[in-house]
């Protein structure tokens, strides 16, 4: 199992999510973060006070996947998040020691495998 952490542009998030769903990656967590990755500086002026905005808005995705899903996940993010300009973000792949699914107590591989949609109780 791996944890894929991707930092992407907020305006690219929809495309990234779309690509991930196409790659059948179902479980993920996102958070809005601020960061700096060598983008050209953004200068803003407020009533004569000029500031360089060092931090840009980014979105961080965390996706726990089983090993054979790592490549499709990474490729989906790389394909969808790229504009070719500085500031497109990063993808990190981290080893994962242990995963538990809280609802069932399942561990590891079983915990990161998406469940089939449960049949609606009637």
């Amino acid at each position, binding site marked *: 199992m791996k944890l894929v952490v991707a930092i992407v542009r907020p*305006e690219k998030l929809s495309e990234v999510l779309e690509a991930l769903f196409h790659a059948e990656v179902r479980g993920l967590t996102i958070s809005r973060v*601020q960061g700096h990755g060598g983008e050209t500086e953004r200068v*803003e002026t407020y009533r004569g006070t000029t*500031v*360089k905005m060092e931090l840009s808005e980014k979105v961080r995705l965390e996706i726990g996947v089983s090993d054979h899903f790592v490549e499709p996940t990474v490729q989906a993010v790389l394909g969808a998040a790229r504009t070719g300009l500085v500031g497109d973000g990063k993808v990190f792949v981290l080893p994962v020691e242990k995963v538990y699914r809280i609802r069932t107590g399942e561990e590891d591989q079983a915990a990161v495998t998406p469940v089939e949609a449960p049949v609606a109780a009637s």
Partner: protein
Amino acid sequence: MNGCDIAWMLVATSLVLMMTPALGFFYGGLVRGKNALNTIMMSFAALGFVGIAWALLGYTLAFDAGGALLGGLSHALLRGVGLEAQGTIPQVLFMAYQGSFAIITAALVSGAIVERMRFSAYLAFITLWCLLVYAPVAHWVWGGGWLAGLGTLDFAGGTVVHVNAAAAALVAALLLGPRKDYARRAILPHNVPFTLLGAGLLWFGWFGFNGGSALGANASAALAFVNTLLAPAATLSVWTLLDLGRSGRATAIGAATAAVVGLVAVTPAAGFVSPLAAIVLGGLAALPSYYGLLWRARTRLDDSLDVVAAHGLGGTVGALLTGVLAQKAWNGSADGLLFGNPRQLGIQALAVAITIAFSAAMTAGILKLLAMLMPLRAEPRDEGLGLDVSQHGEEAYARDEGAILILPDAGPRRVAERDLALAPEGGRS
């Protein structure tokens, strides 16, 4: 001259002027947060650019006697616009009152082209549009031009202001093309309370827009004022019931839109119809705009904030119903279809059709001309980043984390470090 009239028109002018920033908030709430300032600035900047264009040239083109199609130049650069009476108020005040109309009409167009137009191109566009489109149409209806000669009824500008702006908005949306995200992903309003605030302030200002169009503190102003209360109330009620019937939920953006649609619809009718007729007019006006909005959202036409559905359909319905519901017993001048004068409806329809054709053609011409001189649209990258940062170098909701102060003499230092240096006891924050 009459002191009461002057006092009312001074107040009415300031009420109408307030409608432009109110429109900015109405529109600003409906866009994404990264374009909030740009959208509000599109209205706000009109206060300056259109205001000056109007005083220097627009007023004379609209209200100098001139010919049937266009005013002359005798009042260019405000020549001869002084304290002498124009009706019962000083001409300078009349010029300012009409100027506040020119400003908001140009600002209305911006709703169709938000989140993508370059700001400098927009400034050039509204300035030219005020002179080449608004001033001639105002002349036709109010300045003694040929539509006035035909007997067109347009109390406060249903055709001159709203139909005119909506036709321009449609053409501008088509020529600029849709936003790059339009119909590809969800684009949500970022601040619905702003939109309700804007709609509420528009309503408040509209009492000056319609009530002031009587150009005096008189019975006609009172009728227009009351109709400005009743018609939007009817539209708001009908719209809310339509919402409840369709989805079971009364939407806030729907309510804000409904109030504006009702105000637009009663604008041409305000001083011409009875209060009961205004309620009927307001209620009926909800229907085309309500379904027009639903239909538009399914098309490729990115009239982003629905200027056509709200102002075009609302203004057209209002202008036509004025030709149906006008009543001499209330206005002292003209009856409509319902009171035995079917010809009035034809005149109203002609005025609307001519205005749409003229405004659309001229707007296309202005935009084509500007496109030869400058790019009209922001770069796709800037559109993604948001026009607040790319066009204005500011953010509506800036955060100071990571902001480095650029001092004129010293090199850049972190804000936090500077604060600590100034306050050795531990910093203020």
